[in-house]
């Protein structure tokens, strides 16, 4: 892929800072889009409506999706918003603001769909869609995670496999970071998304 104006434009990207961002499979595309939208929200001068308010609408939608509260139709809504902002914003900032959303939608449509319908975040980034689990076979019961858990969500005794109380877990990831035995793993798509949980409670 040659780096020149034409080929970048053809890809829907731009020349300039943040025009090309290299990421690996540990980055969630939806979360990346959310991150950029947050940035644009803060940078917008506020003079024109699409940029001032349209990016906020996009940010809210993306935030909802990453929290696992996405709804059917959100992808179409995002595409519509992005298109509206891109065509009607006054300056370069607003016109390129929806690019992260548009390109991720174009190339990683699946990830969005997974977030929405499967409750899955492949990169295991979106907190609403992941869960930390302690693998009993690997857990040595060293109490490190238990002592350091920010939410006091880990229960267990010394030298016995611990477990996580999901009602308390804040998904901060401290346990995974501290575990010397790699006994904590992140899973996603555990058969529910928050939305489905909500529904289950209602039922």
């Amino acid at each position, binding site marked *: 892929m040659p780096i020149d104006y034409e080929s970048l434009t053809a890809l829907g990207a731009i020349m300039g800072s943040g025009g090309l961002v290299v990421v690996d499979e540990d980055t969630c595309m939806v979360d990346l889009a959310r991150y950029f939208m947050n940035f644009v929200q*803060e940078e917008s*001068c*506020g*003079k024109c409506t*699409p940029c*001032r308010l349209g990016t*906020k609408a996009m940010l809210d939608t993306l935030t909802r999706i990453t929290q696992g509260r996405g709804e059917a139709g959100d992808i179409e*809504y995002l595409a519509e918003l992005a298109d*509206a902002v891109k065509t*009607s914003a006054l300056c370069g900032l607003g016109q390129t603001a929806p690019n992260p959303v548009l390109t991720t939608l174009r190339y990683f449509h699946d990830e969005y769909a997974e977030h929405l319908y499967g409750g899955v975040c492949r990169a295991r980034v979106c907190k609403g869609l992941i869960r930390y689990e302690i693998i009993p076979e690997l857990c040595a019961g060293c109490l490190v995670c238990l002592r350091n858990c920010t939410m006091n969500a880990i229960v267990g005794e010394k030298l016995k496999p611990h477990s996580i109380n999901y009602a308390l877990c804040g998904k901060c990831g401290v346990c995974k970071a501290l575990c010397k035995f790699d006994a904590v793993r992140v899973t996603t798509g555990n058969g529910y998304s928050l939305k489905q949980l909500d529904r289950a409670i209602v039922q």
Partner: protein
Amino acid sequence: MLEFLLTSHPLDCPICDKGGECPLQNLTMAYGPGKSRFPVESKFHNEKRVPLGDLIMLDRERCIQCSRCVRLQDEIADDHVLGFQARGRGLEIVSLSDPPFDSKFSGNTIDICPVGALTSRDFRLSARVWEVRDYPSVCAHCSVGCNILIGERDHDIKRIVPRENESVNEIFLCDKGRFVHHFATAPERLTTPLIRRGWKLEVGSWNEALNLVASKFAETRTQHGASALGGLGGDRASNEDLYLFQKLFRQVIGSNNLEHRVGWSATNVGADLVRLYGAGVGTNLGALDKNVTVLVLGADPEEEQPVIRLRLTKSVRWYGANLIVANGRVTKLAKHAKQSLVYKYGAEAYFLLGVIRAIVDEGLENRDFIAARVANFEEFAKSLEPNTVERCAELCHVKPEKIRDAARQIAQSPNLLILSGREAMFAQQNDPAVASGIAALLLITGHVGRANNGLIALYPHNNSMGALDFGLLSEGGLSVREMASGKVRALYAMACDPAAAGEFTKPAFLVVQDLFLTETAKLADVVLPAQSFAEREGTFTNTERRVQLFRAALKPIGESKPDWWIIAEIAKRLGAEWKYGRSSEIMEEIAATAPRYAGMTYAALAENVKMPRPAYGQGNPSDQPTEIAMGELENVSSGKAWRSVAESEPNAKFELVWNEPGQQSPEDSRQYLAVARSLYDRGTLMSQTQIVRPRVPKPWVEINSQDAEQLGIENGARVRVSFDSRVIELTARVDGHVPPDAVLIPSNLDGTAALPLGARVKVEKV
């Protein structure tokens, strides 16, 4: 986009002043989705009540950051007092000036704000717009004659909004016109006739009061002759009133003692010039292009005719009109002038003469026009001989090159308008050479008798022009000062307050007809309660000679009666056979008898007119004619202007008059007193409106920095100004608006009533 806007807009409609006339609401009703896809909890919240100055309240949450208000202030009103602060969703409107929102046009932002973010602190939360009934009327303050709608509910004026008229005020009003209306319903209004019994004024009946007035007038006439009676008619009264007033005096009583120039307006002169060379019908001050040169002479329209200032600025900025401002000091309008000239007060005639001489020297006069319509050009040119441009330049303190440059622009421009203001009128009054100079300038360049050509005299009040048209002028009669100093035995003062405007000696019998118990009324023998412009219909003639109809909006307050009715009743009791049932009948009589007002019946004035919509310099060019929009409402049009002689008689010949300019007064060590007028002052109508009180400035005196240095006066210091037998103490402002040897004091503020313009004053440090 609507959806975006609504994401951040509060759901305030039920308590929002704009509700019912809100573009956002209307668009949402027309195109908006019924349901928002935006989560309610992420709506933006912001301050709901931010006072933006004394007149305007801002609701930051409602603001959609369209920046119309900022642009209106910057581009149209030319008061750079609003701006944006912060960014993103926190972007908010702030006032940058001190005092906040310091503009004479702030009220217009309420109209153009597309949401209810900017609201009037007067009207705010007091009525829903659909309960308010709009009556077409005409502003009763200055001589621009802005078209307004009086919003009435429950016999009270709730608000005043502009009525679009592309040839008078477009869609704008000044804050005085918009907010100063509370006088009409003030509790201080007179509700019954008052008759003096012994020392006290007591309530009387109409019949008793009118009989007394008529019998006293008749008695005075038989005992002392008709000339012992005098009439002062204020130039706030309508044409109908003024016409009957003069008819009463001229035909029924037989006296010629008639005046309208009470107070500082004693300078209203130049009516004869206007009659001959008045600007052609169809002149539109808001759409003058680069082919029009406008010479604004001795005027301060910012303070005196604000909307004319606004429209001239617009003409200059959008259409490139060639504006030349000449005055004895620097006014706000001068900022936009292609050329701003500051002449020496008192030497106006030499300035004009210099320009004329420069035109003749360079052979730039309009020969065809002169050959066809000017009788005595050769003679006139000869009498110019001794006054070279250099001599004039030296006497009026303007550089000869500047005079020549102005002369070229004036002579070579296809169109020329001269706007002469109060200071120029004062000069005209003292020195006939000024008037003849203005006339000569128009005649030798042939700039009369067509649209965008001729003279507009900027008179002070809403109907000064009408008062001049109906001859309320001391031609052969006594002057205001003579009448006010007891030279008449019976005085009839209608809609004016001579006692507040200077020295006043009560004549043997004094009748005052007014809205309030004014200073003069307190001295009167009989006080007759009149109706304000909001309670009756009538016509005003604005400074461009446009006769405009206004309708009644309120029920009469108490037993008050329209002025014309009172005058007619007095005339009847003096034996006249007048049968006027309504004011339209008087206007019909005027239309039939006064040639200039021919055809101006109410029916004719109420016709809708079509105006070509000016192609705007920026965006939206359109040649669709616009119908005077609000006129359709109650069938009231934009009015009709009468034609000047130059226009109505295409074959009339004119004569150039030569007047040697008056002697320059010997150099005086004292300062020349220039009197300005402040838009907000201590006038009768102003003082009844609480909301604008804080806008009335504290009186000040402006001094040139050179003089100030010599006298050891600093900006803000207290100084004593003495003239004649008066001494006043004021705060000094040293800011370069007045030339050396002159000081400027705004009149009609606290302690600055009745200032003698042109007097010599002594200034010292306290």
